[in-house]
C-alpha cells in the first residue's frame, strides 16, 4: 500500500480532533493541557508531511520552532497550573469560573 500525503493528513486531523475532544470534554486541567499538546503535535505532523511531500524544508524548520516554543510554554503553563492549584486547592475546570460576571 502506497502511503501518500492524504494518509498523513488524515492521521493529523484525527490527532487534532482527539486533542480538541480532550480539551472540551475532560475536566482535569492537566489532561486538558496534555490534549492541547496533542493538538500542537497534530499541526506539527501536518507541517512535516507537507514539507516532505512538497520537497520544501520550510515546514520542518517551522516545526522545530514550534517544538522549542511548546517546550517553553509547557514550563510556563505547568507552573501556572501548580500556582493555581496551590491557591484554589483544585485542578478541575468546573471550579474555576471566576471569569463569570
Amino acid at each position: 500500500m502506497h502511503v501518500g500525503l492524504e494518509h498523513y493528513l488524515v492521521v493529523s486531523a484525527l490527532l487534532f480532533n482527539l486533542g480538541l475532544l480532550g480539551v472540551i470534554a475532560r475536566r482535569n486541567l492537566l489532561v486538558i493541557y496534555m490534549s492541547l499538546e496533542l493538538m500542537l503535535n497534530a499541526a506539527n505532523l501536518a507541517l512535516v508531511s507537507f514539507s516532505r511531500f512538497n520537497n520544501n524544508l520550510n515546514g520542518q524548520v517551522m516545526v522545530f520552532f514550534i517544538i522549542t516554543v511548546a517546550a517553553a510554554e509547557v514550563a510556563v503553563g505547568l507552573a501556572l497550573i501548580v500556582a493555581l492549584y496551590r491557591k484554589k486547592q483544585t485542578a478541575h475546570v468546573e471550579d474555576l469560573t471566576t471569569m463569570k460576571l
Partner: protein
Amino acid sequence: MFGNPETLAWLILFLPLLSAVGITLFTQRQPKVSALISIGAVALSFVLSCALFASLPLDKGLHEIAFQWLSVGNLEVSIGARLDGLSLMMLLVVTGVGGIIHVYSYGYMHDDASFSRFFASMSLFTFSMLGIVLANNFLQMFVFWELVGVSSYLLIGFWYERASAADACKKAFITNRLGDFGFLLGIIMVWAAAGSLNFAQLEQRFASSPEVMGAMATVAGLLVFCGAMGKSAQFPLHVWLPDAMEGPTPVSALIHAATMVAAGVYMLCRVFFMLNAPALEIISWIGGFTALLAALIAVQQDDIKRILAYSTLSQLGYMIMAVGLGGPTAAMYHLSTHAFFKALLFLGAGSIIHALHHEQDIWKMGGLKEKMPVTFWTFILGTLALAGVPPLSGFFSKDEILAAAYHHNLFLFALAVIVAVLTTFYMFRLVFVALLGKARSQAVAHAHESPGVMKFPLLILAVPTVLAGFWSIDGLFNRQFGAETSAHASNWISQIFAPFNHAPAAALAGIGAVIFGFSLALTCYQNAESDPLPKKLGFLARAMRNRFYFDELYAGLIRITQEFLASIADFLDRWIVAGLLVRGTHGTTDIAGRALRLVQTGNLQTYAFLFAAGVALVLLIVLGK
C-alpha cells in the same frame, strides 16, 4: 467726474448708506450733526438725481450699468443700476419727498432721546429704497426688498419701549416676510424657466417667445405679485399697514405713504412684461377689492393717522388695480402724485399731533383753522388732491386709472367710482371733524402753529400736490411702456381739459364722485358733535370700525394653525423621537445585552467548544463552496 451717469447713480445709491454708517459709528452722541449728515445725504442724492435725470436722454430707452457680483454655475448675478424713465422718476420721488420728510423730522423729533438712531434708520431706509428703484435684476431687488423690510421694522418699532409699537413692527415684518416668501418662489420660478434674472434680458426673452414660462406663467406672475401684496399691503396681507402707524409720523409719511408701500407697485411695473392676462385679471380684482375694503374701513376710524393709513391702502389698491388693468402708466402716475399729497397729509397730521401733544383722536381736535393756518390750508390742498378735485394733481392721475377701468372692465370702474365717493367722504369727515368746527378738547386751546422747520416742508410739498398734474409725468411713463402717446396738450389750460376729451365719462364720474362724497360729508359731519353713522348703519358701522374683524380672524386662524402644528410636533417628539428613537435604541441595546450575558458562562471549556465550533463553521463556509 459728475457728468458720468455711472458715478452719479452709485453716488445717489450709496450716499444714504454712508450717512447711516457714519451716524451709527461716529455721531451717536451729537444729534444735530447726525441730522445734518442724514439730511445732507438725501438732499445731495436728490440734487444728483436731478442731474442724472437731466443728463440722460430718456427717449433712447434704457441705460444700464452693472458689475458682476457673484457667479454660481450658470447663475450670474450683478449689482447694477437700471436707468430709465420709471426708475429715474421714482428716484426723484424717493429722494425728493424723502428729503422733505427728513427736514420735517428734524422739527418733529427734536426732543426725542434717540434722535441719532432715528436719522440713521431713515438713511438706511432711503438707501434700501433707492436700491429697489435702481435694481437691474430680480435678486438685487430682492436683497434691497428685504433691507426695506428690516429698516421699516426698525422705524416702526422706533419707540420700542411702547408695547404696541413693538408688536406693530413685528407684525409688519412678519406679514411682509409672508409675501416675500411668494416673491422668492416666483423669482426662482422665473430663473428656472427663463434662465436669467436680469430685467432687460428677461424682457427680451419674453418679447421673443411669450411662451417661455409655459404653463407656469400665471403662477409665476402671481407669486411675484405676492411680494407686492406684502409690501403694498394688499388684501389679504393689508393688516400690517394701519398698525404701522405706531411709528413716528414722519416715518408714516416716508414709509407708508411715499416710498415703501409704493415699492410693490413699482416692482409690478418693473416686471409688467411677465404678467399674463389671467394674472393681471386677478391682480386687478385684488387691487379693486382692497381699495373698496380700505375705503369702507377708513370711514369709521377715529385716529387721524389710521384714517390716512386706510386711505393709503385704498389708493394703493387703485394703483394695483391700474396695473392689473394693463395701465402701468396710470399706476405709476398715481403713485407719484399720491406720494406728494399723501406725504403732505401725513406731515400735516404730524403737525397737528405735535401741536396737540400727541393727541390722535379726531373727536378731540377741531377748530384748528385759526390756530394753525399753514397746516390747515396745506392739509386742505392735500385733501382736495386726494379726493381728485381738478386741477390738482390727484385728479389727473386718478382720472387715468378711472379711464383705464372704464375701457377694460365696467364693474371695476363702478367699484373705483364708489371708492372715489368714499375717499372724498372720509377725507372731508376728517376735515370737518378734526380741523373745522369748534374746539373739542382742552389741548386745542393751547395749540399753536408748528415751527418753520415743519411748516416749510408742508409748503414745499403743497407745490407738487397742486402742480404735478401739469408736469406730464404720465408722458414719461408712457414712453417707457410703449403706450400710445396721448396727444399732449401744449399749454396748461388745454391740459386741464385733456381728461374730458380723452375719456369724458371717467372724468365726469370722478368729479361726480367728489361732489357726491363732499355733500354726504357735509350733511353728516358739519358741526357734528358725535359720529352719526353708527346709528344709521348699525352693524355695518361697527364692522367698519372694527376693520371688518380681519385682525381677530387672522389671530384666530393663526392660533388654530399654530395649535395644529404644535400638536403634530408634540406627537412627533413624544412618540417618534422620544418614544421610538430614543427609548427604542436604549431598549434594544438593553435586551441584546441581557441576552448576550447568558452566553458568558465563565466555563473555559464552553469557550473552547464555541471557539472550535466557530472555526469549524468558518472552514465550512470557506471550503464548502
